[in-house]
């Protein structure tokens, strides 16, 4: 069930099928992302692939007839057109076409997958007048494998008016089907009952499973289950500041396809303008991505001390600034430690952002708001931070959002007062409106429209804001709701009311292989949760996916998009 392995198997098959010789890989935008997440340059060289070209690049050069061309594309209409053209005037010697077929847009209505695939292939075959194509295959490598247990579909805003954007629904169905086929699982499906989108997706998946039943005939000795959940049930997790390395980098610097852009950092050297953070190829990162910020500093310090001992040098390494200095003073360390010095830069940048924006202070209050109930104290603190000009506007807004989610139904809440404070500070309307947006997206009212009675709602609220228990770090008190859901599922105690099975068949055994998919995007904090659950429960395998991997910035966009065009129930009385 390792997703990275699953995709690597496919890519290896593609390259081996064409036999020995120099190869060029012809891809589209999305497949380029898929491949670049998997391989480093030297790894792909081992497969004799030396050139990477985009099918939509409009440079027409003479071509190299002695190259074998592996075409790895998603068969969209445009890609098929590009490829037809390419075959009419082939640039390379022979072609091996690999693609994924469940995602032609015309299949949206009735999933006549084979018929559509045949039409595409016919078009291609008729363009291949020079007989350059050797093989045409369909591989199910249509998702971004971020780690062995985590995948994304790269859809940043999947809903509109709190319903599926049909294009994204289709992309999600094909992505999920691709995941299932690549790891050969035909799962039972459970979905979050309160979510219309979850139900829709579950039905679509089942439709494909039954229409393509012969594709899904594997011998399965385990009981796989696909659990579809909705981000709207836990809007808190993506709003919080993060303190474990990977999550923190994504929150503060944004990870895109394992790449972090540092070009905005003052005085950054050319080779560090964009750094790659890949657990597959960077041992330091692999060992530290789930550690918290403090521990990473400690690890780096130890490495530097080790180096000094060997080099008989002495320089004190007490702070992150010292570390940066160290790397500059000893260029040799940079060379020897390989990726470590890259992380010194990243950690340094994180630390300066934390300091500049007083994120420890903000985070402390965030954690309190999400885990404790002390209305007047918290209200007081929020007011102070809103009036503190050193706190970023967006952080102030996030605090108000958390407050609104927590105390929406509290009789004496002062949401309006806080909104006025924000306005007085000159916070833009767009940001202020986000507070209404999140209530629309995921407030209690939104949940009340579901089949829950008041008591159940209260319980859910408690789940989200559960009390502090034995947590020593005040910045990491919060655990995502997903943790509880999955624990219940593993124990076989997950409510059939809140997460019904699709269809009448139910699983008799406890689940072993679990595929969780979060509509509206998952987070690295949740990825860590799943990682820990995998560690704690040998014998149980969980993989997590989302329409995307959110940080707070992208999540706020998602909310804005999701609630656009909705008649808001929330009115600002003072306006």
């Amino acid at each position, binding site marked *: *069930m*390792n997703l990275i392995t699953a995709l690597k*198997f*496919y890519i290896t098959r593609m390259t081996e099928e064409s036999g020995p*010789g*120099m190869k*060029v890989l012809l891809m589209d935008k999305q497949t380029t992302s898929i491949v670049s997440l998997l391989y480093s340059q*030297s790894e792909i*060289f081992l497969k*004799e692939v*030396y*050139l990477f070209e985009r099918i939509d690049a409009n440079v027409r*050069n003479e*071509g190299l*007839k*002695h*190259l074998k061309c592996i075409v790895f594309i998603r068969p969209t209409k445009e890609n098929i057109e590009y490829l037809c053209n390419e075959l009419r005037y082939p640039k390379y010697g022979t072609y091996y076409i690999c693609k994924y077929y469940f995602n032609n847009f015309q299949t949206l209505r009735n999933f006549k997958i084979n018929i559509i*695939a*045949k039409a595409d*292939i016919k078009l*291609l*075959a*008729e363009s*291949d*007048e*020079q*007989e350059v*194509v*050797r*093989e*045409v*295959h*369909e591989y*199910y490598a249509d998702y971004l494998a971020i780690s*062995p*247990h985590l995948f994304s579909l790269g859809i940043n805003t999947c809903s509109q008016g709190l319903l599926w954007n049909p294009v994204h629904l289709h992309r999600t169905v094909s992505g999920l089907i691709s995941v299932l*086929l*690549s*790891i*050969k699982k035909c799962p039972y499906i459970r979905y979050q009952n309160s979510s219309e989108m979850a139900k829709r997706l579950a039905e679509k998946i089942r439709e494909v499973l039954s229409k393509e039943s012969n*594709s899904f005939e*594997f011998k399965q000795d385990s009981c796989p289950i696909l659990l579809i959940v909705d981000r709207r049930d836990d809007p808190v997790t993506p709003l919080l500041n993060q303190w474990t390395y990977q999550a923190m980098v994504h929150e503060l610097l944004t990870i895109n396809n394992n790449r972090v852009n540092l070009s905005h950092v003052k005085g950054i050297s050319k080779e560090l303008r964009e750094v790659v953070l890949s*657990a597959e190829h960077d*041992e*330091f990162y*692999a*060992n*530290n991505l789930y550690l918290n910020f403090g521990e990473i500093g400690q690890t780096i310090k130890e*490495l530097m001390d*080790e*180096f000094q001992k*060997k080099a008989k040098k002495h320089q004190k390494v007490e702070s992150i600034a010292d570390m940066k200095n160290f790397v500059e003073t000893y260029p*040799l360390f940079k060379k*020897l*430690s*390989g990726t470590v010095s890259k992380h010194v830069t990243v950690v340094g940048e994180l630390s300066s952002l934390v300091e500049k924006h007083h994120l420890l202070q903000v985070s402390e209050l965030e954690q309190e708001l999400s885990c404790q109930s002390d209305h007047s104290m918290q209200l007081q603190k929020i007011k102070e931070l809103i009036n503190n000009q050193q706190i970023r506007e967006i952080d102030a807004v996030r605090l108000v959002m958390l407050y609104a989610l927590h105390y929406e139904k509290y009789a004496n809440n002062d949401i309006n007062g806080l909104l006025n404070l924000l306005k007085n500070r000159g916070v833009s309307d767009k940001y202020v409106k986000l507070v209404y947006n999140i209530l629309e997206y995921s407030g209690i009212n939104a949940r009340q429209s579901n089949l829950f009675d008041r008591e159940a709602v209260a319980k859910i609220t408690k789940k989200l804001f559960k009390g502090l228990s034995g947590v020593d770090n005040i910045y990491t008190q919060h655990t995502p709701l997903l943790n509880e859901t999955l624990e219940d599922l593993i124990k076989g105690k997950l409510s059939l009311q809140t997460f019904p099975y699709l269809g009448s068949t139910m699983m008799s055994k406890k689940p072993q292989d679990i595929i969780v998919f979060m509509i509206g995007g998952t987070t690295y904090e949740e990825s860590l949760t799943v*990682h820990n659950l*995998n560690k704690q429960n*040998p014998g149980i*395998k969980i993989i997590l996916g989302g329409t995307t991997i959110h940080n707070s910035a992208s999540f706020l966009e998602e909310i804005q998009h999701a609630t656009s065009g909705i008649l808001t129930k929330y009115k600002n009385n003072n306006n």
Partner: protein
Amino acid sequence: MAGSEEVLEGFLCPICVTDFKAPIQLTKHFEDFHNDDPEILKSLKDLFGKAKKKILKQDEISYSFANSIPSTTRLQRSPESNWEPQEIGMMRSHTKYFKEIRNMRLERYSTETNKLLIRLDKLLNNLPTDPVDRKVHERTIVPWIDDKDVKLCPICAKSFHVARRKHHCRLCGAVMCHNCTIFLSLQDAKKMTSPVSVQDDSAVSPTSERPISERIVRAGIGLTKLARSPSSGSLNSVLSLVNDSTGSEQHFRICTHCANLLDAREKQKAKHFDKPIVCQFYEKMRAYMKEASQHVKMYNKMWESLNEGESTYNLEDAQALRIKIAKLGENIDLISKRISVLGTRCVENPPQDQELRLHHMVRVSAMIFLKEELLSVQALPSEERYAELQKERQRRIEARIAYERQLEEEQRERSKEQRRKETWNLEIRPIMKENQPNVVLDQSQGWGPSSVAPIMPSSMDPIIEQMSNLRAYIKQARADCRYDEVATLESNLKELQSVYFTMKQSNNSDG
């Protein structure tokens, strides 16, 4: 790694990790201190070229330091890496369907193309020089369509008039305007229809996955059609005749449609003849890489065994292998360097951007290979050191044997005690034979390759023959770098020698 107290940068000797500030000094150091291995010196000299300075530097020092990284950071172990192995996911092939469609379509094309080629051949055969005769000849072979009904050029759809006259394609007989026709020179036409070329069509084309018989049938279709076609043409288009005769001696006028068909076929043919030089270089380089990887694997095995003080492999063999690897590395370096500059000095046809990128990437991949595979090959112990290692091993073995013997002794004592007690208790028990001698595998019971015939002690000649056979095998195996086999064969030879020796002894005493 343990010895390097100070970490330095510069021109480092890869063997003793000392900095020599400049390449000249480094080379001198080599000649002074490591001259026991002139071959290695030679190849390393080259590897110290500017391009590899960086790699080596990093490689050697990092060796001392990098090892400490995992020790401090290897805390986390991803639980996913413990998941059971999985198989490749679902796949579906559309190749069959694709080829069905393509063949259906190409069948049509190639029938048409074959027809054109046969016509072309007939046109060229006894082509009259006189324009009027020639026209008759042409029209006998390819009937021209009646141009009265043709109002528009079928290709560009423009109407004909005095300035845009009608012309006939000599290959299909259709009518079109001047702009939509081209002239095929007689010379080119002859080339196209030459027997070699015609044969090529079935032998070389990538369609050859289809049975040849099918392709012959396809050509046959063209023939029968031609035979059935009416040979008389209607007399018309005097204008075009006059017009054509002006410059048609060395050409056939043909339409663009027919030209495209012929052109596509020529391209197909050409494709198989142009395999650029880079391919040869590349294939050679890959072959060297493959060989080097195999050798490195063998070498590492030998290195480990030798450093354990074992005598499975010969030290000299390992040294020879190391030289071989260094030489292969040198070759890989050279070839990849040549690939990277391929054609860059060519003025009239400089390599295009993509080609340059390709060559550069091949070079980079070779550098990575050299760095990761070959430069990590570790030095062998010196002969003296090896002798020491062997002695150490001997001591270890002796110590272990002594220890085991002691254990055995104790065990025996204990069981004796036990048995004594048992016999005491159950008096009738027959006393078991004690002190069963330890089963010691004697030398002659050993193993050997199945190809070696069983030893016949009755006659001596077969043994001598066997021994010389074995020596030949060993030589062969050594030449092929199959050192595992060398080890086995050598132990066989030793056995044989000892058997031979004892037999000789007994024979001598007998006689």
